[in-house]
């Protein structure tokens, strides 16, 4: 990270705010219809009869911070940036689907949501979902983070 971190954070926040408005307006309903459609198809393919499809939709919006972070990060070639965006978004969508399958199955088999255990497990999953886009960004933008791990003396020579 060459520029001051606070400027980077402000830029990411501003872009996220804009993207969240779009997400709130249209994106969420579209992504929900795609994921729910896929899940129904998946359950039907495996011969599972799901009475009520319950999914943790509040965990799906973590795509926004990942996109903002990848777009604002400097010194990434356009081709690499697109590739990293595709990889990250695919991992996040895969995580959403996996989480939804687990929650859907638990809900149907054990009626888990009303239980105390569900609420206990919901907290770590919620926190993990919040952190996952940042973790993905830290891995995919490794070169940009490397300077944080270098001593100031060496950075000055560089």
């Amino acid at each position: 990270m060459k520029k001051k971190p606070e400027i980077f954070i402000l830029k990411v926040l501003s872009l996220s705010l804009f993207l969240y408005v779009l997400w709130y307006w249209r994106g969420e309903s579209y992504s929900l219809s795609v994921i729910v459609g896929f899940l129904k198809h998946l359950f039907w393919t495996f011969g599972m009869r799901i009475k009520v499809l319950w999914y943790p939709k509040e965990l799906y919006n973590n795509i926004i911070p990942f996109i903002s972070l990848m777009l604002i990060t400097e010194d990434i070639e356009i081709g690499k940036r697109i590739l990293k965006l595709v990889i990250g978004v695919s991992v996040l969508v895969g995580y959403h689907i996996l989480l939804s399958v687990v929650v859907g199955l638990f809900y149907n088999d054990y009626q888990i949501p009303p239980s105390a255990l569900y609420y206990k497990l919901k907290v770590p999953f919620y926190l993990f979902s919040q952190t996952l886009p940042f973790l993905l960004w830290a891995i995919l933008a490794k070169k940009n983070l490397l300077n944080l791990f270098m001593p100031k003396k060496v950075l000055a020579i560089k």
Partner: protein
Amino acid sequence: MKPSEHRKEKQEIKQATRKAKKEILRFYLLFPVFLFIIFFVYPFISPYFNSQLVTISSWTAGLLGFILNLFGINAHTSGPVLALNKLSIRVVSDCLGLSEILILISVIVAFPANYKKKLLGILFGIPVLYLINLLRVLFISVLGNWNPKTFNFMHIYFWQVAGILIVGGIWFFWIEKIVKYEKETRDIYS
């Protein structure tokens, strides 16, 4: 610069890069492990601290009510509940910034630095995060009182990102101002 000095500098950069690459890999491994441990332990131990959390929530609600009244906004509190004209909110443990504090602890503990600096980062980060959360609850309460729809948007969507980015900001600050200083002195005197 003499060629020998230039060669020495180049070698120093190479060594530092190699060391940084090792440290970043260690960080990638440790951070998710600490996150997972803290996240899974937290919900199971938090009921034992329930009364303390309710007390802190009630203090926070009282403080928020006091600040709002100070700015001429009519607010009443009853325990952890803060009531404005059009909006009533219950201050819960999440409003205290607990999840952000847990993430900050994980990210600081996973970073290569000595225990003193880590402790300093945690002790500095917790009150800062609490204060920022206080400002956040203040801001979204006023916003929600004005327009309840914006309350949901800011609370459920936007703040989730803002909270973690602020954690990132505190982490960057800690690395630049505390850890890097430590690295400098360690390199000079070792």
